[in-house]
């Protein structure tokens, strides 16, 4: 599974677990408007760390945190290829 597919699968699963209505996910969808709250994001980040072995929020030299889903995917892709 590609990193993008893995991330989208996590968004969908956590939304379902937390009873959140997920916005239609496009690369330009902002995380704020995704329908997920900060607890959901915390869960996704923890599970992605387990699945990919990286937590770019903790390790990235890039100080700009992702704003859109596209940023978020790139953020993980960059961290995973290092």
């Amino acid at each position: 599974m590609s990193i993008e597919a893995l991330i989208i699968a996590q968004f969908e699963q956590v939304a379902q677990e937390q009873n959140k209505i997920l916005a239609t996910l496009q690369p330009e969808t902002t995380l704020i408007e995704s329908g997920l709250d900060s607890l959901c994001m915390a869960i996704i980040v923890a599970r992605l760390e387990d699945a990919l072995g990286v937590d770019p929020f903790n390790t990235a030299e890039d100080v700009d945190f992702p704003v859109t889903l596209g940023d978020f995917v790139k953020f993980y892709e960059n961290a995973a290829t290092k």
Partner: protein
Amino acid sequence: MLRPSSPGSLWHAVAAAAGPSRRTLWGAEAGVELAELFERSSLGDGREVLCGRSVLLATEGQLTAALALIELDGVARRIVLCPPDLPPEHVDFVMAGAAIDAVVADRATPAVHAAPVGFVVACCPETRPAAFSTGPGVATEWVLLTSGTTGLPKLVAHNFATLTAPVQRAGPLAQAAVWSTFYDIRRYGGLQILLRALLGGGSMVLSSANEPVGEFLRRAARHRITHISGTPSHWRRAMMSPEARQFDPHYVRLSGEIADQAILDRLAAFFPRAGVAHAFASTEAGVAFEVGDGRAGFPAQLIRQSGAAVEMKIEEGSLRIRSPRTALGYLGGDDAPLAAADGFVDTGDMVEQQGERCFFVGRKGGIINVGGQKVHPEEVEAVINAHPSVDMAMVRSRRSPITGAIVVADVVLRDGFPLDGDRADAEILKRDIAEFCGRVLPAQKVPAVIRFVPSLDVTAAGKLARR
């Protein structure tokens, strides 16, 4: 040789409780009839030199520790009960704090043999003849060690009166009682059981640190134990042993950790003829109460009951206790006073009232902060433990770049650790456990990640090892 004359001493209480004939203390390898101690001594002639001294009781075995306690209360000035897992590097600190000038040891206590004291007295279960004369009797201080926040142990001073205040003296039914406990008797929870056996007129089966659980349970069954205590972690482990089916106790007691509804229900089903009770006690505060109605938590009316032997109040969420069972104070070290100016001891155990019932929710320092919302690991564990597939769970904090921390759970399944081939099933079960939690807990308390583990570590004190 001096026999204590003070009627408040342990030996007098042992002798007064139905007489010590046919009453036995059984250790892992040997048993000693209490009647032997009328004319014989486990300390032999060495006992004379312990008169009036501050004694480090550093035996490896629990049987020798129990015998020495019976013989030295009212004789020694102070007895420090050294648990078998005291790290060797802490021995000097304990000896200095308690001004130790004599040591009682059995065969294998190397850390103490190197210690700079004048007197080392051997204690052994093979009692030797000894003549006794009646001495003046002293109010011996008993010192228990608890883990301190700095890593060094705290020295908690009690005496015969504070330790035995919660114990009912001999009743007609108690005399046939055979007590046992998973605890070491050099910890408060285990010592309370020893004192119940000795003062109540019963016998006791002592556990041993090196003995496998199954072996201990076989021994307990062989001696037909009637009353047995342990922590919920002890009990969860015991119920996995086939040997636990071999005995039929009248009374099963839990203490030392929060007794959740799941463990109370499992014990009641496992031992259908036993009364299952859970007690709350701490080394510093003493025994506060015992609940026998089979429900988790305790009646709210126990709080602020006027004229009660044990007074309790909740301040800043934590349970405070004042009673004649409370310890006298700390020895040595720079610890804050044990009790507040009003005499109440802060147990550090957080309590929440729901209607007419109070529930323990966790420890003061153990709170997980999820985005500003507080989560007690224990309240989440209680919910996970109620899931039919779960044997036990440990909830801990995991750092999160988003919310500061999230809740994660390590879970031991009743049917054992899932194999790699069962991966898909394992994922479904994890989701089911999370959903189970979500039905009763707010979202921040539901574990974000669940991990199945083959087992969870339990400390020497019988509590879940939290890291």
